[in-house]
């Protein structure tokens, strides 16, 4: 069962530093391949950190691990991912005559995939 969300790709400090360190390096790759989701949404969907989900937009589809957003950074129904290859895969090629593909507040559907094999209690 998939559920509708709004996805905001954006800059993070670690993603910014990763650009200088090198895009093929671990830090950049790690930062840009995790999806943040409001803790209450994670709970509702029965997700724990590290679980993988499928995110589908008008422009594409990705599979990505989730992580709870820090404190109250994200309202329920909104997802965040650092700019990178995965976020670009969800952008559509159409810019609606503006030159700018809709790159923030994308309509997506989120569907949980298989459960993480790691025991959530071990992750603290």
């Amino acid at each position, binding site marked *: 069962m998939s559920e509708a969300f709004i996805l905001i790709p954006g800059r993070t400090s670690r993603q910014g530093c990763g650009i200088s360190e090198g895009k093929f390096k671990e830090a950049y790759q790690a930062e840009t391949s995790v999806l943040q989701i409001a803790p209450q949404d994670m709970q509702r969907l029965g997700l724990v950190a590290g679980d993988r989900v499928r995110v589908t937009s008008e422009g594409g589809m990705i599979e990505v691990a989730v992580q709870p957003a820090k404190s109250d950074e994200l309202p329920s129904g909104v997802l965040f991912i650092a700019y990178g290859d995965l976020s*670009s895969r969800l952008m559509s090629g159409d810019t609606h005559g503006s030159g700018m593909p809709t790159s923030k507040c994308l309509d997506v559907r989120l569907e949980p995939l298989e459960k993480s094999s790691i025991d959530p209690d071990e992750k603290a």
Partner: protein
Amino acid sequence: MNASQAKEASADLKVVSDATCTFCGCVCDDIELTVDGNRIVKAKRACGLGTAWFLNHEIEDIPSCLIEGKAAPVEQGIRRAAEILTASRYPLIYGLSDTTIEAQRVAVAIGDWIGGNVDTTTSVCHGPSGMALQGVGEVTCSLGEVRHRADFVMFWGSNPAESHPRHFTRYSLMPKGVFVPRGRKDRTCVVVDVRKTKSAKAADVFLQIKPRGDFEALWTLRALAAGIPLDAEQVRQTTGQPLSVWEDLMQRMKAARFGVIFFGMGVTMTRGKHANSEALMALARDMNRYTRFTCKPNRGHGNVTGADNVVTWRTGFPFAVNLGRGYPRFNPGEYTASDVLARREADAALILASDPMANFSQPAREHLRSIPYIALDPKQTPTTQHAAVAFHVAVYGINVAGTAYRMDDVPIPLRPAFPSPHPSDLEILTGIEREVRQIQQAFA
């Protein structure tokens, strides 16, 4: 020389004062670099992003030029690049924002000679704002004015705590200015965003709006500035905040002596795009009926503002310029790189100081991958990886001197720390321009 400088000098370290960081649009030019041979070991006063920028640009142990993935002499790469560009029927020149204005100038010249399509990374950051300002104008100011005068500072859809970490301390919130002598205490800071970002923590007032509610929220403020009565329920539903909150904000804005709105990608990348930017710029303009009010896009890349300036000097337009008919035509949505690639129009490209293979939509990336293109970048990136000709260049501001424009259009000189064995963007582009002319003259 102070004690630490003396110690560093004795250890054979070089100190470069007033070096310029070109990682983000703040273009901080007060950095003190400690250089150990071909490595920067300390970047005093730089933020986390700036430190990562300075400390990770050592001399890359990769060939300066690769043709089809194989190491080749630079001159051969320049010749091959010129051949690709002159054989093309619809060449795209894209990027430009992370190099000196001197190099940008030559990139536009090449576009002119080959009748190409010139676009910069502006089109995927504040391009919509560039469109909006042509419609409503821009009430602007320098960051120095903000530092010394602004007592009301609003950030809208912008998260400088993570994108421009010294924005608050160097320009907008903390400094003690001539007309705001107590610094932060003399300023009101408002953050408007969909997410409660790290920047929200710095605000006196944080307004969390509904996703995609920017346009409605900005027009609510415009209506309040004009004294137009509003339906409270409709305002709450469309913006996510009650009308009373917007009324309170409008009171604060009117009461300011000098207000400024810094805005970011939250405004330009969200549905509405240029209509959002236009509403924000018009709001800043409206507020001048009451007090001095300005707005500024928080520009991302170190010299993206230089790219806007250079492309404008040379063609009359800031980005999305097509020179195919021998004169410039401007049309975002048509001549913007995302579109030219996603519609599979360009048949060759020169990508300068940017990484569309990482940042563009999938259809645009797939098309770029299918055409011959030239890429110039200091590091290996997804874009250089697939280039027909890849040049690994010296880094502007670290190895190469020149000029960058701060986000408020102030030109700042670059003071390099150490030389690089790799050529500069300017050298490669000057070579390509020369070869393009030779090929064209041979067939004239």
